[in-house]
């Protein structure tokens, strides 16, 4: 009786998962196997249409590349930030963590529109560069991949920093002292001790940033416009503009599978190189 009671505690959650996650997912799979947008004729037509079109592969590749570029940018900027956080005094750490978490407290829409102000033709970046005489004509940043990567880097940064900081601050501070006392320079300590040991946090951060930036429909459309086409935009067009639900389901499943593939590859690599957590 007692044993039964224990697993029964998980039932509400299991039911919720089944009804609001698993069931729609299965419906999505089901819908994708219909040939027409009325969902009346079963068949593989939509899959054949999507997979037979070279344009589809370009969109998939662009979406994955966008994710990878964002991941790289968040690492390049986020890792040094995490190191600075680690060295900061407790009071400064509180200020830093507030700054890091703040983007999460704002709506994605607000953050994205803020970036329009920054990156626009008459925006902050262009005005500044022109006044400094570095450029003579405004740079085109909006509706380019560069602008999108820049804004996604800021928008997704908390997802990189939070796991990274949480793993790093659990590292034994004596390890850095030990490395230094053994004669290692700061760089050697960084690459031989801190980076390998912070790998679990880094991998977690990469997964979150990748999954979140490849599916960031609002930022992708608002900053990238309709000129840059990624999988989420395609899904939106097919489902809510053209009302071709079976095709939208095909694209959705493609996005799901591609993200899952990259995410599992990343986490496999991460586990192989850094499966030792302190303690």
């Amino acid at each position: 009786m007692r044993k039964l009671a224990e697993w029964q505690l998980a039932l509400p959650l299991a039911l919720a998962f089944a009804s609001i996650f698993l069931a729609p997912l299965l419906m999505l799979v089901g819908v994708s196997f219909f040939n027409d947008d009325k969902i009346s004729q079963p068949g593989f037509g939509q899959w054949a249409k999507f997979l037979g079109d070279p344009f589809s592969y370009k969109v998939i590749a662009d979406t994955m590349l966008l994710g990878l570029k964002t991941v790289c940018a968040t690492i390049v900027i986020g890792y040094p930030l995490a190191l600075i956080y680690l060295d900061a005094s407790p009071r400064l750490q509180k200020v830093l963590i507030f700054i890091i978490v703040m983007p999460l407290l704002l709506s994605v829409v607000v953050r994205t529109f803020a970036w329009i102000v920054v990156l626009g033709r008459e925006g902050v970046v262009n005005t500044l560069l022109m006044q400094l005489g570095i450029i003579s004509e405004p740079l085109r940043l909006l509706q380019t991949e560069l602008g999108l990567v820049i804004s996604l880097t800021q928008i997704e940064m908390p997802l990189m920093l939070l796991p990274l900081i949480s793993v790093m601050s659990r590292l034994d501070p004596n390890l850095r002292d030990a490395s230094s006392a053994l004669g290692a320079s700061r760089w050697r300590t960084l690459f031989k001790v801190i980076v390998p040991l912070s790998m679990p946090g880094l991998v977690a951060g990469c997964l979150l940033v990748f999954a979140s930036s490849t599916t960031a429909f609002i930022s992708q459309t608002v900053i990238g416009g309709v000129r840059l086409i990624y999988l989420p935009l395609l899904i939106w067009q097919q489902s809510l503009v053209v009302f071709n639900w079976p095709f939208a389901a095909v694209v959705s499943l493609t996005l799901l599978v591609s993200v899952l593939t990259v995410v599992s590859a990343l986490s496999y690599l991460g586990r192989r190189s850094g499966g030792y957590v302190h303690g």
Partner: protein
Amino acid sequence: MQQAVKANAARTLDVEDLSVRYGTSTAVDGVTLAIEPGEVVALLGPSGCGKTTLLRVIAGFVRQATGRVRVDGATIDHLPPNQRNIGIVFQNYALFPHMTVAENVAYGLRARGLKGPEVEARVTRFLETVQLGGFKDRLPRQLSGGQQQRVALARALAIEPSILLLDEPFAALDRNLRLDMQIEIKRLQRTLGLTTILVTHDQDEAMSVADRIAVMNKGKVEQFGTPVAIYDEPQTLFVNGFIGTTNLMNGRIASLQNGSATVALEAGATIDLTAPAGLGIGAPVLMSVRPEQLTLSSVPGPDAWKIEPGLALPIGAQLVHEARATDGTFLKIIEPRRAVAADAARTYCTLAADARPMLFPRST
């Protein structure tokens, strides 16, 4: 096996008038220590006394506000930790968890630019020195606490440091292993002739391993001397109370002549003792006497005071008596068990024949 590691020339270590401040608090306050080549010195004191901070200054992790640290006469204050060539073993060993035992030991050698076979030869030699020759490819988490400590020791020794620092090295080990490791570290230190500083809060550990002990309190060194001197002739009340157990009895100096003083105890006895400097007739004093230097007797006398016997606990080969003097002072008296007569009438306490009580001024 131990001869494989040659003794290098031992260095002197001088700490001169060293102070460390954190904000407004002073962690280390004007400490001066002159440590001889090849000597083992224990920094002993309660937590927060500044002993670990002092160790971290010597290692270079903490910068002092004033004062100097010299190795063989040359100041090392301007050097970052990675250029000081000082070996340190941390309380939690701080082994790199993602590296094998061999990689841990090789770490300092590779950082010094040594390569291939030379690194391998030294790693093998030092792992054999700490009797872990067969554990090269293990990860630290696959080792017991004692083995981890040996690896930490081999790692610190492999760089052939000029000074060895040990931060509470035995605190995480269980009792039996602790004694083994104490003996082993002492033996290694002798073979290598390394000047060694050991931080500990455990007086037994300090007594058994160290040649000299610096007892620290509130950032200051209260006394720096051999274990015997510290135990038998504590210079301050703090040292007196911190090392071993002791009985403190109130009294006054009744008379002084030719360097000897007669102390009238409030418990009702007069004791003749060596006169302490700077105390006049009538000065209030505390007499400190170790429990094993007191004895019970059934005979009253001028140097015996009446007591009310309490519990008697047999602890190993000893019998620990608890008693109360007439002025309310609780006393602890330790006697060898076989010397105790089954005599209930022993209601007087007196100094044993070899007693060396200490006198300290008492503030009233």
